[in-house]
């Protein structure tokens, strides 16, 4: 093959463009969270990823405004390690959760990356009470070693401005 053809083939292999692959990835991520396999969930993120649940509708910045959760990679690791602690009062008893991911749209394509929007609902049951969360996920997915990774994940909750009880289980 020519160099140009090689590059084109390489770019095609690196692309994050296949809706079936992306949907399968998001479904897998939701399953890991539903099953509380948080260390495997963490492994889906890149080494410098961030995870963000804004406190305001349309919030532009995690640094000038508070967030329900805003974790750089270091804090995300700590969050996951805490979730897997044996003694975790806020998860005694543990929650059970079920997430549905749908309406998947690729918003932007870049070489080896894509910004993906999806809709989700999450039911969380704990201690005789069920809460239902709904909103939009924005994933920046990148191609790493042939597979997909999460470079960033933003979770826009429809009720992010509400008076809320504590949020422990990630969305």
């Amino acid at each position, binding site marked *: 093959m020519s160099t140009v053809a090689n590059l084109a083939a390489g770019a095609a292999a690196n692309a994050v463009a296949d809706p079936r692959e992306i949907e399968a990835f998001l479904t897998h991520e939701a399953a890991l969270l539903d099953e509380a396999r948080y260390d495997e969930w963490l492994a889906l993120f890149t080494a410098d990823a961030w995870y963000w649940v804004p406190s305001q509708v349309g919030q532009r910045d995690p640094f000038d*405004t508070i967030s329900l959760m805003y974790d750089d990679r270091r804090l995300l690791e*700590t969050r996951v390690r805490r979730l897997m602690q044996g*003694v975790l009062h806020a998860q005694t008893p543990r929650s059970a959760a079920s997430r549905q991911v749908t309406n998947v749209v690729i918003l932007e394509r870049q070489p080896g990356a894509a910004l993906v929007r999806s809709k989700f609902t999450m039911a969380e049951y704990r201690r005789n009470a069920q809460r239902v969360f709904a909103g939009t996920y924005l994933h920046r997915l990148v191609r790493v070693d042939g597979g997909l990774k999460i470079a960033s994940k933003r979770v826009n909750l429809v009720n992010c401005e509400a008076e809320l*009880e*504590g*949020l422990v289980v990630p969305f």
Partner: protein
Amino acid sequence: MPENRSETLARLVQPDRVHRSLYTDPAIFALEMERIFERTWIYVGHESQVKNPGDFVATRIGLKPVLLTRHSDGRVYVLHNQCAHRGAQVVADASGNAQEFRCCYHGWSYHTDGRIKNIPLRHGYSSRLDVSDPKLAMVQLPRVESYRGFVFASLAADGPPLKAFLGHIATSLDDMVDRAPDNEIEIAGGVFKHTYNGNWKLYLENLLDAAHPLFVHHSSIEAAKVQDDAVPSDGSGEIAIRQMRQNGASYGFWESQVGIWAYPNGHGYIGDYHDDAKLVAAMNDPVFRDYIAALEAKKGKAETKRVLELRRWNTNIYPNVSFMSQFQQFRVVHPIAVDRTVVYTYNFRLKGAPEKMFRNTIAFANVVNGTGSLVLTDDLETYDRIGAGVGSGGAEWLQIGRGLDTDIPDAHDGRRGKNSTSEVYLRNMFDAWLGYMTAGKAGLAAAAE
């Protein structure tokens, strides 16, 4: 309601214990709203929230919805958010700017100081409707006073002025403002609104409690301790993890090196457990160095030193505020029911400080006050557990006696714990509680027993 007579109330608060009904009895809760929240000074907002004429912000005094407004005369007012016609809530927005407030029901409108402005179809109302009656209004609260931008209001026409109510604890509000190079602060960066199924008093109690972190915050302490600091951070995670680790300081440290002070009217503060070497300067943060330079340029070296060496952690202004000056956190407690509470937590921006300082404030807010924080969520769980357990009746009395025999008198009519884990702050809050609830008659009743 014979169970709420002063003598009975006095029996519920004893030197080393309080009766559990203070956390469970709806009748006592109703009495608290009337005798505490409707009588004393209640924090309602900060002047930076209502900078311009027509600005308003909605809040609550006890269970009553009120508005803090800035009127065209430049003054701040606190109004009942209620229409004089049929009682509807007039303003539904949490904040905004308005030329007038107009009721959605029959269009009665009000000036931003609460006076009636217009009544549509005026001719049809009875001649008894007196538009000059000051009660025909979004009624103003009788007393509103501001201390260095912090606005307090009282539903009672008579009572001590705000400065007397605050006493020595005003120095903690000074500390909030003095840390700004320009001596001015403003609310910024959004508000957390977290709820729990427990009594409002639990929140204030926990904020001065040096004995709880090692137990309540076990999960975040353990998770943070072993965190690899080589993992990328944009700074926010670094601050959060330092905070969590510091919560894991040894029991000896909590016991002896923090300090707890209590003052009249239920106020108090806990000394700082972070010094600069542990938190900010340990990051060798150039922003913090710029901040010190800005302070010194505006205030001089001696005043800068005084400001930075005053290290108070949480200060409570009883009964509805707990704040923290070093990272500009300000929490407002809203009782909803005897077993339900909402806490709003705000951040302040220091005017004249480097822009990037506020990033630290936000990162700190997320870990200490965040609804999804690794730290706060274990506190909220604890309040829920007390809410679930305290109604049991197995333990009729709750213990508040730690340090009782060793407390030390302090200046400004205060007292402090010999050890930082003394429950002197609890006894102090209940002294104030009893004073409010019995209008000062409790002492007599207790003496007669």
